[in-house]
C-alpha cells in the first residue's frame, strides 16, 4: 500500500481510565486527601478498606491498537459493549486525548457520535443547519452551497423555517443526519446513528453513505451492533474485544468471530465468570450455573436427542410461584422456539434451588444454536414479568442429514417431517 493512500494510521494507541470516583469532586476534598496522605494517615475520602487498591485501580479502555485505514475504505467496527469501540471513535474525533500512542490523519474528520449535536430548539431548521454544519467543521459558504440538497434529503422542506422544537423526533433526526451526510470532510465517523428514523429513511441513509464513499472516495468508519447494516455498508470489518483488535478483514468472517467470541464451547457455564451473559441488573433470583447433564461436549443429534439440562440458582428475595422459560435461538440470537414450565417453584430468600429437565428440540437443521433461560412470574392478565434472564448454553446439531443442501436464509431452521400425501 502506498503511503499516500492511507487515511488514518493508528499506532500503539492506549487509553487509560481511573476507576472509581475521580478526586474528591471539591477542592476541599482533594486538599483533605492530600493532607492526610502527607501525614501518613488514611485518606478520609477513600472507600473504606480499599486504601492500596484505589491507587492502582485503572482500566484500559484501549490497550494497544494498531490500525491502518485506506482512503475510500468503509470500515465496520464491531465488538461487545465495553470492547472499546466508542472510546476509539472518541479519540479519533478528538473529544478526548489518548494516554499513549499516536493517530495520524490525512483529511478532515467529521464525527457523528450523536445526531443533532448542538441543535437549538429555538432556532429554525435552516438556522440549525448552519449551526450544526459549522460545529461539524463546515464554513458558511460550504453550507450555503449544499443547503438545497440538505433540505431535500431531510424531507423537511415544508417545515424548514419552523423552530425545531416543534419538530417530531423523526424529523429532527432526519434533519440532523442530512447535515452530516452532506459534509465535505474526507473521513466520516459514525456511531450507530443509523439506528434512528423509520426503515425507509435508514435505507436511504445507508445508500447515501455507500454512494458518497464510492463516488467521492470518502473514508467511513462505522460502529454498530446491527450486523445487517454492517453487511450493507462496510467492505472491511474489525472486531474489538477488551480494548484490542482481535480480527481485521473480511466482513462475514468478522461477524462470525464477533458472534463466536460470546459463545462458550462448553457444556457447563459458571455465570460469575461471564457477567456479560446476565441480562438483568438486579435479578430477584440469581442463576449461578447451568449444564448439560452427563455430557462433556455440546454436540447433539437431531433425530435422537433431547437436551438434558440442569440449572442452579440462589434466591435473592422470597419467591412465589416462579415459572421457567427456555428459548432456543439461532447462533445470531434469532429466536426459534420456546418451552414454558409454569409456577414450579417457591422459596425463601437465601435458599438455593435447582431444576433438571429435558428440553425437546424441534427438528433443527445442522448448525449452531444457543439458548436463553428466563425465570418469570405470570400475571393474572396473561402477561408476565421477567425476574432473571441469562444467555444459556450453546449447542451444535451435528447429525441428521438434510435431503438437500440446506439454505437457512430461505428455508428456516426447522426441518418438518416429510409431507403426508393424501390420495
Amino acid at each position: 500500500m502506498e503511503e499516500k493512500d492511507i487515511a488514518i494510521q493508528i499506532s500503539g494507541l492506549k487509553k487509560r481510565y481511573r476507576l472509581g470516583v475521580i478526586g474528591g469532586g471539591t477542592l476541599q476534598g482533594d486538599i483533605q486527601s492530600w493532607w492526610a496522605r502527607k501525614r501518613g494517615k488514611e485518606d478520609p475520602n477513600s472507600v473504606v478498606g480499599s486504601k492500596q487498591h484505589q491507587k492502582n485501580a485503572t482500566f484500559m479502555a484501549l490497550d494497544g491498537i494498531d490500525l491502518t485505514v485506506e482512503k475510500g475504505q468503509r470500515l465496520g467496527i464491531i465488538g461487545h459493549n465495553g470492547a472499546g469501540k466508542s472510546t476509539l471513535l472518541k479519540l479519533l474525533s478528538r473529544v478526548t486525548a489518548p494516554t499513549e500512542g499516536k493517530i495520524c490523519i490525512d483529511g478532515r474528520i467529521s464525527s457523528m457520535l450523536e445526531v443533532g449535536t448542538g441543535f437549538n430548539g429555538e432556532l429554525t431548521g435552516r438556522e440549525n443547519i448552519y449551526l450544526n454544519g459549522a460545529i461539524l467543521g463546515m464554513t458558511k459558504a460550504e453550507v450555503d452551497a449544499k443547503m438545497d440538497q440538505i433540505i431535500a434529503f431531510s424531507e423537511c422542506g415544508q417545515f424548514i423555517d419552523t423552530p425545531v422544537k416543534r419538530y417530531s423526533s423523526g424529523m429532527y433526526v432526519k434533519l440532523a443526519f442530512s447535515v452530516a451526510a452532506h459534509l465535505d470532510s474526507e473521513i466520516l465517523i459514525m456511531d450507530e446513528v443509523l439506528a434512528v428514523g423509520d426503515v425507509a429513511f435508514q435505507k436511504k441513509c445507508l445508500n447515501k453513505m455507500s454512494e458518497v464513499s464510492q463516488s467521492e472516495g470518502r473514508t467511513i468508519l462505522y460502529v454498530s451492533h446491527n450486523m445487517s447494516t454492517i453487511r450493507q455498508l462496510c467492505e472491511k470489518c474489525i472486531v474489538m474485544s477488551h480494548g484490542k483488535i482481535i480480527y481485521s478483514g473480511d466482513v462475514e468472517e468478522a461477524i462470525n468471530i464477533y458472534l463466536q467470541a460470546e459463545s462458550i464451547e462448553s457444556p457447563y457455564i459458571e455465570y460469575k465468570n461471564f457477567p456479560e451473559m446476565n441480562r438483568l441488573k438486579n435479578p430477584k433470583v440469581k442463576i449461578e450455573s447451568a449444564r448439560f447433564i452427563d455430557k462433556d461436549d455440546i454436540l447433539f443429534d437431531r433425530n435422537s436427542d433431547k437436551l438434558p439440562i440442569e440449572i442452579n440458582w440462589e434466591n435473592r428475595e422470597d419467591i412465589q410461584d416462579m415459572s421457567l422459560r427456555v428459548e432456543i435461538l439461532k447462533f445470531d440470537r434469532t429466536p426459534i422456539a420456546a418451552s414454558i414450565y409454569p409456577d414450579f417453584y417457591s422459596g425463601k430468600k437465601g435458599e438455593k434451588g435447582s431444576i433438571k429437565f429435558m428440553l425437546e428440540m424441534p427438528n433443527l437443521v445442522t448448525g449452531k444454536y444457543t439458548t436463553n433461560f428466563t425465570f418469570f412470574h405470570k400475571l393474572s392478565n396473561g402477561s408476565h414479568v421477567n425476574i432473571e434472564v441469562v444467555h444459556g448454553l450453546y449447542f451444535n446439531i451435528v447429525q441428521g442429514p438434510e435431503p438437500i443442501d440446506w439454505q437457512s436464509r430461505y428455508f428456516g431452521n426447522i426441518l418438518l417431517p416429510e409431507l403426508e400425501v393424501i390420495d
Partner: protein
Amino acid sequence: MEKKWTAVIEPSNNLMDLKLKEVWRYKDLIWLFVQRDFKTRYKQTLLGPLWFIVQPLFTTIVQTFVFGNLAGLPTDGVPQFLFYMAGNVPWLYFSTCLTSTSNTFVGNAGVFGKVYFPRLTTPIATVISSVLNFLIQFVMFLGFTIYFMLRGSAVHITWVAALTPLLILEMAMLGMGFGIIVSSLTTKYRDLQVLVGFGVSLWMYATPIIYAASSLSPKMYTAIMLNPMSPIVELMRYGWLGSGTTPWVFWGLSWIVTFIVLFLGIIMFNKVEKTFMDTV
C-alpha cells in the same frame, strides 16, 4: 519523504501552541454562536432586550440612594446618578464576561463530548454576544448623559471617549482570561464556581465604582489602581463625563496584566480541553 498529515493526535501537545490559527478557521462558527445567542435570548420573553436596561438602571438608582444620599460619598461634582451609572455599565460587561465564560466546560459538556471543534470558540462567542448587551446599556447611559447635559450639569465629553472601543476590548480580554482560567479549574473542582460570584462582587469594591478615585489618599489610590479594572472604569468616566483622573501609567500596567492573564488562560484552557471529558 515524510507523509504530510492533516492532523496528528498525541497524548500531549506543545503547551506554548495557542492554536489560535485553528480558532480563526472556525470564525464562521463563532459568528453562528453569537447569532444563536442573540436570536434565542429574547424568544418567549415579555420585555426582550429591555431586561438588560433594568439591571444597571436599578443598581444605579439604589446606589444613588444608599451611597449618594445616605452615605454622602463625593462624586467629583458630577450628578451622582450619572457617576454611578458610568461605573456600573462597564463593570457589568466585565463581570458578565467573567462569569459566563467561567462555565464554558461544565455548561457545554454535552456538545463537547460528542464533537470536536476548537473549544475556545465558545468563550469568544460569549464575550462577543455580551457586547450587544453592553451596547444597549451604553446607549441608555448616553441618553442620560445627554439629558443631564441639556439640564446644564457640569458634564462634558472629552477626547478620551474615543478610547472606548479599546477599553471594551480590554475588558473582554480580561474577563475572558479570568473566566477561562476558572472554567479550566471547575472541570475538577465544582465549588470554584461558587467562589466566582462571590469574588466578582468583592472585586467591585476594589474598583472605583461607588466612590471617586480622586477622593482616595495617594497610597490607597496606587493600591486601587493596581487592580486592572480600575484604570478602565476611571478612563471611561473621564471620557464621557469629564471627571476623575487619567491614570495612563496604570492603564499601561493593566494591559500587561490583561495579556498575561489571557495568555495563561488560553494555555490552561487548551491543556484542559484535551481530556476534560474524562473528569467533568
